[in-house]
């Protein structure tokens, strides 16, 4: 029979990489029975002898609580592998040896793979391997799993231990007088029940009962005659807790920790305990007073890159869609004799104006997702959660709320689902009501469009203001709700294990950026396309006189509905039916606000079909304008840190921007910029998109969804009203 080798280790100790080296290409991947956890299994040979090797899920110990721990613990106790390879991270010896101690107590033959020795050496944490081997009484093999160093030696050590064959004496740790007294009595009783032998050495089995390991308890209970022993184990654990003043499982872990400390002392291997450079950074970045200003500064840089640096590409995509792409579409329709009718109207005024208007913002979204991915992968995002946790708790909102709220910067739907990370139904509902106030990626095109019209030189500042306003409004609403309908209770603790800072991995960053940008593009091809066609249809349907496709837009079904809504928006400075219509269609998805404006204001009908110089000329135009956009982008990068090489106030207005400006000037009686700002505030705060509403209803029910729809509309109306009317009174804009 092929001897079985199990690879155990703490999470992130390099276990799976080491397994891949051991098993090479000859391994299979499946699932553990009844679990969604992957099971990696393979074969390796030493001097012709074959070994079956299984990679166990990462675990810190053998008291099983999670699915992963249950798999590892259950596998070891049921299958009695010939050898257990315990992978110990050399930079975190104590944690790994704690696990190795338990494997040794369970009486299993063991080889310790001392992994990441290279990193430990670099940090001055080098281990005397021979001394460690002596102290543990088992083979210790230094390895570097990433490079495969030490793998042949590890194979040889495994083969030697397996060949020895003789049973090993379980490790015996002195647990002190209180525990030893109760443990001794239990072991004596266990010896009288030989059926328990299948679970491992009697002392180990009793230790597991005292620690409350559920698998051992269940297995023992299923053995005839062992029920009394299980009950005695429970009584002993209670007695230990009473006598020692600490729960039995903690007292056991404490003594094991002492044993590990003794081993480390004996080899002089505790190493320097100074803070790492990542710890030093954390002192500043998560500082009680500095943390928040630093977070705001980082957000400002993110949004400057997003709104300003990507602007030349936005203009390039816009020009490409409204120029060459629209010309090609018209020529194509002409070629198949479909020009001049409703098909041309659908393609040009529906699809190209709607979808094209949104696709133009892909570079902006790309910029946002790139910056967020860099922050995530560098480890900074975890720090922001800690910083904002403190800020939010200070005003009575559960600190963990900021985790789902940060998700809301991407999309509100997963943010609503992310409320499942919270502990109580009250906290979940409260945060669910707050997440839609976060500026999702879909709102960004609206911000960039309006800020580009009215605040050209301060585009990124306005966009940042919208992001911050969302957070401030969420905090204020949370403050009100947590003191009225949703009163606060004591929040449960969460120890954040901050990942060390690192240079972002390009592949990870690219994967995140690609996934999110592609989801946005696909959204343009589905939801936005459907919404644009829907708006086009409603624009083509007449109210009263006229026929389909032959009616003035103001007299269309869309125009009529928008006019009815526009009445409500008049006091906010944007009571034109086009503006109301854009907001109405924004309920489908917030990007649709832009696509509808494009449809209503411009229609994207190419001005000059003949002046392109043909298909090749168009391609040349696309290429040269792309190079121009790239050059402008490069020149805009220094502006992020205050070095202005481009006059951003002198950008040419597009047809859409000019039309939007004229419309807002008219609707506000000459206070266009103020009305534009009020419009942005309204877009930030008003009822979220249909997908978000569906997610909210799914999680919290119809009644609370209704509360959110009405509540957010009122908040948005009041916010926009305050901006426009107070702004007018004090003479802004």
């Amino acid at each position, binding site marked *: 029979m092929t001897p079985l080798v199990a690879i155990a280790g703490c999470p992130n100790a390099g276990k799976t990489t080491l397994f891949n080296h051991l098993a090479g290409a000859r391994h299979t991947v499946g699932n553990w029975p009844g679990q969604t956890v992957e099971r990696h299994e393979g074969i390796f040979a030493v001097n012709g002898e074959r070994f079956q090797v299984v990679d166990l899920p990462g675990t810190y110990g053998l008291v099983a609580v999670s699915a992963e721990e249950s798999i590892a613990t259950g596998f070891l106790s049921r299958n009695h592998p010939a050898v257990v390879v315990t992978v110990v991270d050399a930079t975190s010896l104590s944690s790994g040896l704690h696990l190795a101690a338990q494997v040794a107590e369970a009486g299993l033959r063991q080889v310790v793979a001392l992994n990441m020795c290279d990193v430990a050496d670099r940090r001055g944490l080098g281990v005397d391997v021979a001394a460690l081997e002596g102290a543990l009484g088992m083979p210790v093999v230094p390895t570097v799993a990433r490079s495969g160093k030490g793998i042949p030696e590890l194979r040889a050590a495994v083969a030697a231990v397996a060949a020895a064959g003789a049973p090993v004496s379980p490790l015996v740790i002195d647990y002190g007088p209180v525990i030893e007294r109760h443990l001794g009595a239990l072991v004596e009783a266990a010896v009288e029940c030989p059926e328990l032998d299948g679970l491992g050495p009697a002392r180990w089995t009793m230790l597991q009962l005292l620690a409350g390991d559920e698998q051992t308890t269940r297995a023992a209970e299923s053995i005839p005659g062992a029920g009394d022993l299980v009950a005695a184990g429970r009584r002993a654990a209670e007695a230990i807790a009473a006598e020692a003043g600490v729960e039995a499982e903690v007292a056991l872990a404490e003594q094991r920790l002492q044993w590990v400390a003794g081993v480390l002392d004996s080899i002089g291997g505790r190493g320097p305990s100074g803070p790492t450079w990542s710890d030093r950074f954390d002192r500043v970045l998560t500082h009680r007073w500095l943390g928040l200003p630093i977070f705001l500064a980082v957000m400002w840089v993110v949004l400057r890159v997003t709104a300003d640096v990507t602007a030349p590409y936005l203009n390039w995509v816009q020009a490409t869609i409204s120029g060459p792409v629209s010309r090609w579409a018209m020529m194509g329709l002409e070629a198949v004799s479909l020009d001049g009718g409703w098909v041309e109207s659908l393609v040009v005024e529906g699809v190209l104006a709607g979808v094209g208007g949104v696709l133009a913002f892909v570079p902006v979204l790309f910029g946002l997702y790139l910056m967020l991915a860099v922050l995530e*992968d560098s480890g900074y995002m975890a720090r922001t959660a800690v910083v904002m946790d403190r800020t939010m708790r200070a005003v009575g909102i559960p600190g963990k709320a900021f985790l789902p709220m940060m998700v809301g910067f991407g999309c509100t739907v997963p943010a609503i689902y992310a409320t499942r990370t919270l502990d109580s139904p009250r906290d979940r509902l409260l945060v669910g009501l707050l997440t839609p106030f976060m500026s999702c990626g879909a709102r960004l095109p609206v911000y960039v469009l309006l800020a580009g019209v009215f605040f050209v030189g301060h585009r990124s500042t306005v966009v940042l203001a919208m992001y911050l306003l969302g957070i401030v409004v969420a905090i204020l609403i949370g403050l009100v709700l947590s003191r009225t309908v949703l009163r606060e209770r004591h929040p449960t603790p969460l120890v954040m294990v901050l990942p060390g800072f690192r240079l972002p991995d390009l592949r990870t960053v690219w994967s995140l950026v690609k996934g999110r940008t592609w989801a946005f593009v696909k959204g343009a091809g589905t939801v936005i396309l459907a919404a644009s066609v829907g708006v086009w249809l409603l624009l083509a349907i007449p109210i009263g006189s006229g026929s389909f496709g032959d009616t003035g837009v103001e007299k269309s079904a869309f125009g009529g509905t928008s006019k009815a809504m526009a009445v409500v928006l008049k006091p906010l400075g944007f009571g034109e039916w086009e503006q109301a219509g854009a907001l109405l269609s924004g309920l489908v998805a917030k990007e649709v606000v832009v696509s509808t404006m494009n449809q209503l204001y411009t229609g994207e009908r190419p001005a000059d079909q003949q002046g392109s110089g043909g298909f090749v000329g168009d391609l040349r135009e696309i290429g040269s304008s792309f190079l121009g956009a790239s050059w402008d982008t490069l020149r805009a990068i220094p502006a992020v840190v205050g070095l202005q090489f481009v006059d951003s106030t002198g950008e040419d207005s597009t047809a859409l921007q000019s039309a939007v400006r004229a419309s807002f000037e008219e609707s506000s009686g000459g206070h266009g910029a103020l009305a534009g700002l009020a419009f942005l505030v309204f877009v930030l705060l008003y009822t979220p998109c249909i997908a978000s509403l569906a997610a909210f209803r799914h999680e919290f029910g119809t009644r609370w969804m209704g509360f959110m729809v009405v509540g957010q509309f009122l908040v948005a109306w009041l916010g926009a009203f305050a901006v426009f009317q107070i702004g007018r009174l004090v003479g802004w804009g």
Partner: protein
Amino acid sequence: MKLVEVLREIERSSGMVTVADLARRLGSTPEEVRPMLAALQAAGRIGPGRAGSRPVEGPCPAAGSCSGACPGPVDCPWAVGFGSGLELRARHTG
């Protein structure tokens, strides 16, 4: 410093607490506290917490935005990573 002191400090905390915060409150260092957290995990008293966005269970209403090509909860492009957290676990009753 004893393991039980770390456990009691976590129990006393509310909301998020970093390893550095814990160490400061206990008059210790993060390097000393980290192995103790691992030991508490080994004892089953604390475990991986929910510090990121939660996977969506069941049909996701945003699936339409992803053109029906939902990559699943783990690879959802809209989820944001925050690193890991450790939460208290209910005490064993055996």
